[in-house]
């Protein structure tokens, strides 16, 4: 057990950069998610930690020890692969026992620990099966047991849920999180699915094009994105280009004047983008209003509205109004007034 520290970790292939100076600490018992679109460098980072890819620069420390130059088999990480990577010619029990065998654990202790690990994932009754005789969800749990049975210092998960169907994904997600917390595992998980990252991880690292864009809790990233990419990637967001004008006013490129927090504006005078979450915008039918409804999409619990105001399109998401609510009868072409708290409008620098 221990923490995981990445120091200025870089990976270059010729002239292209896969990972650019990643600094990160995963504390003992913490679960951190590397989140980003494909090709953002998150998997490369994970594979560098596991020892499958040698870093071009930087250091990796596990429990304070520099493991940067150590081969994969001497790193004491437990990894769950996207494809599960079970050994097809070994039974479930043999798969789980493999790591203990490599650590020269005696047979008696080995058998006990294998069964214990399989009980942990509720598969102790299938120890004699071959992987191909199991369902995808069961295979996934074997992979978990196999990685956990050796008590790795660092637990690594590479898109562990992407091969499961939607219903199973939710269950396994909870299961992994519960295990991780119960065993106090220092965990790094790679995912492109923000819901997965938001629900499972203590902290998220949003990556794009090899760089870390922002690190924070789900709430910090959602409520207080400091980067346009993060604002757009984590949750949905209206991103409006423009510049600050007068205190508390943001002039959109299209000409609309949108209000924002005065203090926030003073803190970031160079703001080039205004970020506004769709569910933070209030909507009122108003014949005198400056907005015009361009689309209404009924989604059951929620309804999405697209409103044009002075040449700017804004997405608004509201809980679907009750039948009595006049908002319920809102139709395309109707005039509306929009409102939001000044603090809900985040000011961001230009995208890089």
């Amino acid at each position, binding site marked *: 057990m221990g923490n995981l520290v990445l120091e200025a970790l870089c990976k270059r292939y010729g002239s292209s950069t896969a990972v650019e100076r990643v600094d990160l600490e995963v504390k003992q018992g913490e679960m951190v998610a590397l989140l980003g679109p494909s090709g953002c460098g998150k998997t490369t980072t994970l594979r560098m930690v596991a020892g499958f890819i040698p870093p071009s620069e930087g250091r990796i420390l596990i429990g304070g020890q520099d493991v940067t130059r150590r081969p*994969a*088999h*001497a*790193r004491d990480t*437990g990894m769950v692969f996207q494809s599960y990577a079970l*050994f097809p010619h070994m039974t479930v029990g043999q798969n789980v026992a493999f*790591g203990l065998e*490599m*650590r020269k654990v005696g047979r008696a202790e080995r058998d006990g620990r294998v069964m214990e690990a399989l009980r942990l994932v509720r598969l102790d009754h299938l120890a004699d099966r071959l992987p191909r005789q199991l369902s995808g969800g069961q295979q996934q749990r074997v992979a978990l047991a196999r990685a956990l049975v*050796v008590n790795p210092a660092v637990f690594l998960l590479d898109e562990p849920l992407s091969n499961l169907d939607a219903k199973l994904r939710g269950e396994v997600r909870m299961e992994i999180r519960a295990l991780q917390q119960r065993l106090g595992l220092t965990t790094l998980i790679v995912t492109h699915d923000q819901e997965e990252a938001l629900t499972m991880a203590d902290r998220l690292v949003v990556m794009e094009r090899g760089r870390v864009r922002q690190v924070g809790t789900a709430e910090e990233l959602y409520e207080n994105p400091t980067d346009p990419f993060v604002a757009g990637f984590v949750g949905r967001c209206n991103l409006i280009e423009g510049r600050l004008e007068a205190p508390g006013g943001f002039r959109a490129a299209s000409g609309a004047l949108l209000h924002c927090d005065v203090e926030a504006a003073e803190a970031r005078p160079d703001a080039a983008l205004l970020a506004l979450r769709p569910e933070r915008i209030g909507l009122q039918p108003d014949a005198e209003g400056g907005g015009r409804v361009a689309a209404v999409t009924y989604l059951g619990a929620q309804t999405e509205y697209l409103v044009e105001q002075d040449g700017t399109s804004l997405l608004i998401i509201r809980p679907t109004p009750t039948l009595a609510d006049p908002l319920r009868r809102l139709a395309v072409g109707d005039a509306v007034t929009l409102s939001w708290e000044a603090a809900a409008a985040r000011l961001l620098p230009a995208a890089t």
Partner: protein
Amino acid sequence: MSMPAPSRLLFHAVVAAAFALMLAPVVMVMVISVFRQEIVSFPPPGLTLDWYVNAWDRQEFARGFVSSLQVALMATLIGVPTGTAAAYAIARGWLPGKGAVNTLLLSPLAVPGVVAGTALYMFYLRAEFWIDADITATLHGLVAAHVLLTIPWTVRLVSASLAQLDRSAEEAAANLGARPFTVFRRVTLPMMRPGIVAACLFSFIQSFENLELSLLLVGPGRTTLPVAMLSYLEFRIDPTLAAVATVQILLVGGLMLLTDRFVKLSRVV
């Protein structure tokens, strides 16, 4: 795949015709081997197993069978490990110019057997002069030639199975603490097994029934079965050959069935 009824019917008819076309000669040989008359004619005047007795009595077939077996076994034992090692090296990339090596290893398949056999014969004569030892008409000379059949087949089949192999299983083994050689022995090699078994089978069959390559390299008293059959044919035409061929067919068919119990042939070929 669902198809409308008429095209499905046509599809089945074409498949059936293809099977009939491929199996007809095999079945014909087996049928003819029990015809009583020396010159084959329909309907047969009667049935007999005399041709099998005759084949057994004639020493050249029994001896040819044994030496074919010897050659095929040895060529397989040499060619499969060599070819497997080569395929592994090519697939895993610590080899400069591996594309060229791959082509070179597969190239014997592209050369007609008679041409390769003649070339080898001439080369052997030259080599005998240099090293002052017999190569033509010896067992090792023939085995060396047949390794040219078993290596390409092995490289081809094992490469295919390596290409399908999930590399992350090897990474998982390393992640669990296995050193590179242990990873190879405990994970990679067992996962390659279907390909290797298929390579053994095909190498053996290719060598066992090879005629063209062996033609010039066999010597008196050391003839392989196919060559023995050809020489018999030069002087006589009677169902003895059909009887020998039937034994050969049954042996090869039996080998395939046996292999299929361990590896699904449809998955590797």
